[in-house]
């Protein structure tokens, strides 16, 4: 199988501070990969490489190579809009826009030139169904997104990301601000989505990583310590740091 995302010796500097050190990981399509590690070890930073969100921060320097679907995304003439269309992102806290439920999901389409109402309706419905939210909101699409519960808001944000048909979805601790029931729903959803998307998920919750992911990568102070199949890594960690972390000795 061909890798959909590859990173080769990627380093990232916030001004002087090196947040990532020579990270190389490859990702297979239609898999879920979990990034784990203590807080501040660079998981989010690494994740944000894939849709170039780190570009928004001043004085960031990146070296190494990142490819998505075979293309170097840090090439000069990379079309960032097209890249971000291909690579959806779900954030830690649910962050719907101050708009209606419908307009939240339609947002990505609208900003990219799709304004045909029938197309929008169709895509919104499709995305909301995919994110298992349709039945709960179909009667109140015109209502403000803020009226939804936290868990619903997060699924709305997933629907919002799905609407522009990405092939990759990045999730940065998507359930850390949610209650256990909502968390379970999100995990179930991730399992479903795996059939159509490649998912990279940051989580500090090891059980969650164990439940949802096929592969796991363990980060520690900007370095990739160990990566491999989730089961393997959890049962049989090769590195002592990984072992300490998953047995709860630090972090």
């Amino acid at each position, binding site marked *: 199988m061909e890798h959909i995302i590859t990173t080769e010796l990627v380093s990232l500097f916030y001004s002087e501070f090196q947040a990532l050190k020579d990270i190389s990981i490859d990702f297979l399509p239609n898999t879920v990969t979990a990034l784990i590690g203590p807080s501040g070890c660079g998981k989010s930073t690494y994740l944000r490489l894939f849709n170039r969100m780190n570009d928004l921060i001043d004085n960031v320097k990146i070296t190494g190579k990142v490819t998505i679907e075979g293309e170097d995304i840090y090439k000069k003439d990379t079309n960032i809009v097209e890249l971000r269309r291909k690579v959806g992102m779900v954030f830690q806290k649910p962050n719907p*826009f*101050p708009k209606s439920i419908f307009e939240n999901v339609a*947002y990505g389409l609208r*900003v*990219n030139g799709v304004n045909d109402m029938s197309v929008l309706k169709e895509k919104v419905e499709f995305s909301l169904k995919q994110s298992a939210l349709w039945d709960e909101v179909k009667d109140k699409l015109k209502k403000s997104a*803020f009226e939804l519960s936290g868990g619903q808001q997060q699924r709305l944000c997933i629907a919002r*990301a799905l609407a522009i048909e990405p092939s990759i979805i990045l999730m940065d601790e998507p359930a850390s601000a949610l209650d256990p029931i909502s968390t379970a729903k999100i995990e179930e959803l991730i399992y479903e989505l795996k059939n159509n998307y490649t998912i990279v998920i940051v989580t500090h919750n090891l059980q969650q990583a164990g439940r949802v992911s096929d592969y796991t990568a363990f980060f520690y102070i900007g370095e990739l310590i160990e990566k491999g199949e989730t089961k393997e890594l959890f049962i049989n960690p090769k590195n002592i740091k990984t072992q300490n972390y998953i047995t709860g000795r630090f972090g």
Partner: protein
Amino acid sequence: MIKFFKSTFEKIIEGTLFLSSTITTLAIVLIIVFLFREGIGTFNQSPIEEGFSLVVNKNNPINELSAQQIKNIFDQNITNWKTVGGNKDSIILFNLDNISNFYSDSAIGENFEFLPQCISDYTEKHSGVVAFVSTRYTGKGFTGKILTTPKVTITQFISQKEWFPTAQPAAQLGVLALILGTLWVSFGAIVIALPLGLATSIYMAEVANPKVRNFLKPLVELLAGIPSVVYGFFGLVIIVPGIQKLFDLPVGETALAGSIVLGIMALPTIITISEDALRTTPKAMKEASLALGANKWQTTARVVIPYSSSGITAAAILGIGRAIGETMAVLMVTGNAAVIPHSFLEPVRTIPATIAAELGEAPQGGLHYKALFALGCILFIITMAINLIVGYVSSKKKYNTR
């Protein structure tokens, strides 16, 4: 024992602090009491100066004249009693200064002791006469009719156009021209300041790099601190002559000059408040938009501005409030003609400027003095309303985190 002392001490301090915090409320109450006590006094007075009255021939069917009618009669805009609902008879204005034309010195008396009889005699002989005389002369034995004048009413005060509080015989107390003047100038100011201010705040919050912003922010703060007389002075020496030359006007002191100066003065308020509002947009929300392929402008227009719209509205309203209440700068550049403005190139007069210009000359306790306080009341009510609106707008819940 020590403990008791200590806790008593704490109680005393707490009491002192509490008292201080009530002073604000007390101040507002006092302001309302003093402002309105004087202001409402306007409405119990006759527009005719105390100690004087208007007299006519006793056969004249007219019993009452309004302040406006009196003014028109004495300005000779009305020359026939018919116009004000009386007989068809032309109006004869009798002026005390000319009395010697009609009566000999001896008839008047050496010490004017027979003056009342002369006035009485004159009013009796001329059916169309109207005279404005001291009540000293209209006592016992006076054969003319003393007219009554309706007291100033609130409706009159608000709806009448003419503001001429020192007019004789009857003060003209219509604030419509002043209210319109105030709104006119403020409207112009906001038309200038709003687009510039909002654009600048968006630029500072969303476009400019931190270095530029760190230069702009203190500059705007500094300009917020510059006294209004300085702005007025600048307007007076630069903008007023500029407008005069540009539009080839007889005078440059115009509503436009006022609007420009006020617009500049309202800028810091608008920029600061609206920039603060824009900055409250959660970073996560902006990132979500960018992650969906929106560019910065789309994010600004579709997410940041809607999210901070209540703060931006508050900024605009406060800007208007600042413009409406501003005194000195307007006083210096608008020409202060108390007429209803028809264009931006005419002099106007605003409520605050009127108070500032006239209070010094109005005798304390007189009708004029009270009328100026009534203007203050109007201003107070307008700004209170603005405050309430701002409070309401900015308290509207925009974002429910849970």
